[in-house]
């Protein structure tokens, strides 16, 4: 019996995944806020109680995410790209490219059948290709962020906007509003612009199918549709895409217990 935990110290949320003999037995998350370590401790306690296990039963805890150095309990770390590769292939054994779109960063990782990363690319230092962009655009449109996706699916056509910068993107959205474009069309324009940037990034890396999409933004139907259109490919999306990083860290922890990972 091997029980391991993975902690993903994301910029907006901390995620925990507990694995028991290769099965996910618990997930938990909390807002990172100003005290991400505390948030992780809370989420970890929650995950343990959901899994009905004590902390002593966990053989290894590994951390990932931009705040990985602040993770509590962790005895090791794994890069976010390494975690994506592991989780992608665990969730879909046919996965060879994993795209991860989080709150502030988008990345793509190529991997082999063992879930070992072979190459990766990260978006430019700009939030226009990441979740924060949707959040800002939803604010400009005065709709809830979670309504953006369903809204965009009602669009009858696409109207292009600029996604080189959140600030300029917002002013583009405002001018579309002034031109009396409908909200569904503007919502779709937002997702198309993001998908454009992300697909150029993935093309620079080269695409090996199957392609898996993970990260918090992978829950957004509007974005999934836009990205499918841009890439012209089927995209596999797991049930809990936002936990991919934590899952990858937990899988790394498991291979550390087995001794086949440094």
């Amino acid at each position, binding site marked *: 019996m091997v029980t391991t935990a993975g902690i993903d110290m994301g910029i907006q949320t901390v995620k925990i995944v507990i694995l028991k003999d290769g099965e996910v037995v618990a997930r938990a998350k909390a807002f990172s806020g100003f005290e991400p370590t505390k948030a992780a401790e809370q989420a970890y306690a929650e995950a343990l109680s959901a899994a009905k296990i004590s902390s002593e039963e966990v053989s290894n805890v590994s951390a990932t995410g*931009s705040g990985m150095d602040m993770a509590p309990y962790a005895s090791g*770390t*794994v*890069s*976010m*790209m*390494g975690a994506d590769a592991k989780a992608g292939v665990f969730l879909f054994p046919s996965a060879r490219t994993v795209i991860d779109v989080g709150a502030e960063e988008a990345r793509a990782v190529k991997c082999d059948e*063992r879930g*070992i*990363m*072979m*190459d*990766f*690319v*990260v978006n*430019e*230092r700009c939030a226009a290709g990441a979740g924060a962009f949707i959040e800002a655009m939803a604010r400009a449109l005065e709709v809830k962020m979670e309504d953006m996706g369903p809204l965009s699916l009602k669009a009858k056509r696409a109207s292009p906007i600029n996604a080189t910068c959140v600030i300029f993107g917002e002013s583009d959205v405002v001018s579309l509003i002034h031109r009396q474009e409908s909200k569904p069309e503007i919502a779709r324009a937002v997702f198309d612009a993001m998908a454009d940037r992300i697909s150029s990034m993935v093309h*620079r890396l*080269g695409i090996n199918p199957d392609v898996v999409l993970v990260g918090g933004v992978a829950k957004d139907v509007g974005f999934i549709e836009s990205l499918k259109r841009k890439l012209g490919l089927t995209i596999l999306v797991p049930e809990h895409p936002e936990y991919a990083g934590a899952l990858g860290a937990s899988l790394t922890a498991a291979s550390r217990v087995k001794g086949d990972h*440094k």
Partner: protein
Amino acid sequence: MKSQTAEKKYLPEMPQKEIDEANASVKSTSEKIMVDNIERMKKTDPNRPAAMKYFDDISNFFGQRKEEIEAEKAKGRKVIGYFCIFAPIELILAADAIPVRVNSGWYDTSKFGDRVVPVEVCPVIRSTIGAKMIGLSPYLELSDAVISTLTCDGMTKLSEILSDATQIWTMTPPRVKDSAQSLHLWKEEIKSIKTQIEKLTGNKITAKKLKAAIETMQKATKAFRRLQELRKGNPVIMGRDAMLVNQMSLWDDITRWIQKTEALCDELEKRAAQKAWACPPDTPRVIVTGTPMFWPDNWKLPSLVEEATPQGVLVGDELCSGDRILYDPVGIDEWTMDDMINGIAERYLMASTCPCFTSQDGNEDRINWLITKVKENNANGVIYYVVRGCMLYAMEYARVKRALDKLSIPVYYLDTEYTREDVGQMKTRVEAFLEMLSARVDF
């Protein structure tokens, strides 16, 4: 000499008080950074070679070497600065002048350059303009003339901008190496620089003096190659230390640099015999290529690689601020003046792997050289380093990546700026790359 009253075309007037304050503030930051960089290098390799002490001292921009050059200048010797490593060092030495490279590695001077050119321009250029505006770089300030090779767009306009404040001698390299006209044009450029050097120094470059200078530089190449050779096996020296030694050849008295580098190599050979490695032999081995990185501030990437978890070691580079500096000797058949000028022209043109060149095969020389380097130095991967605004290196990446992909050599494109603020993001990327290299090595 340029008349002091000539109207400035680019550089804005700055009040002397502002110049003095800016100079003092950037200089004090820079002094701290130099000390910090060296401390970090010592920490990375606790058994750092004793011979490095000399290079640490010489690397202080405001220290011993600056004073030596000032003293030589007071005795009447001329100082000739240069930007690109196309400047024929042998001719400078033959005229008894002191060559110094003057590209700026200071982050904090780029904000002054921003008053002249937009932020989209390469930060090496912006920072060099800024360094001139506040008089920060001792070697640039001491230069009686600066040789500027018109390689990239940035260098071309930099020459024009700095003409406001310094005597600039331009050299135009051809964009294609392998044609008869190219070599002819370049040879004429070399001859014209020779005349200018003679005029400035008042010293005639005789065949005898030129032969002596070529022989000195051949010795420098020998010492330089010996150091690079030692980096091919298990790590006897950390990459940052070797990079520092390489760069000091740009400023130091070359004869003394040769002695000190040979002494370092003796020590490294002993280390290898005792199997006293600078880091564990299974540390992922990295080669860097791309935009040049200059001491002292722009030590960001090498520090990240060698201080990362998992740790990496730089076993070589394909940089004009590194392993390219002295690698190629001037080849001479007969020691006639004409033959020597030919040899110099060929060495500085044909051996260059600068991305300013193209041909029907593209910049094949650079790719071949990089691949040879990866193989000979047993590198596990390549970091392709580009500062934003450095168009030629950025554009050549796609081609280099394709060539490396074919050989299954992992490569990562890392772009950055002359700033300390992106260290966190760079660290994430560098560590992921090193983690990938270790995983690929393990299996």
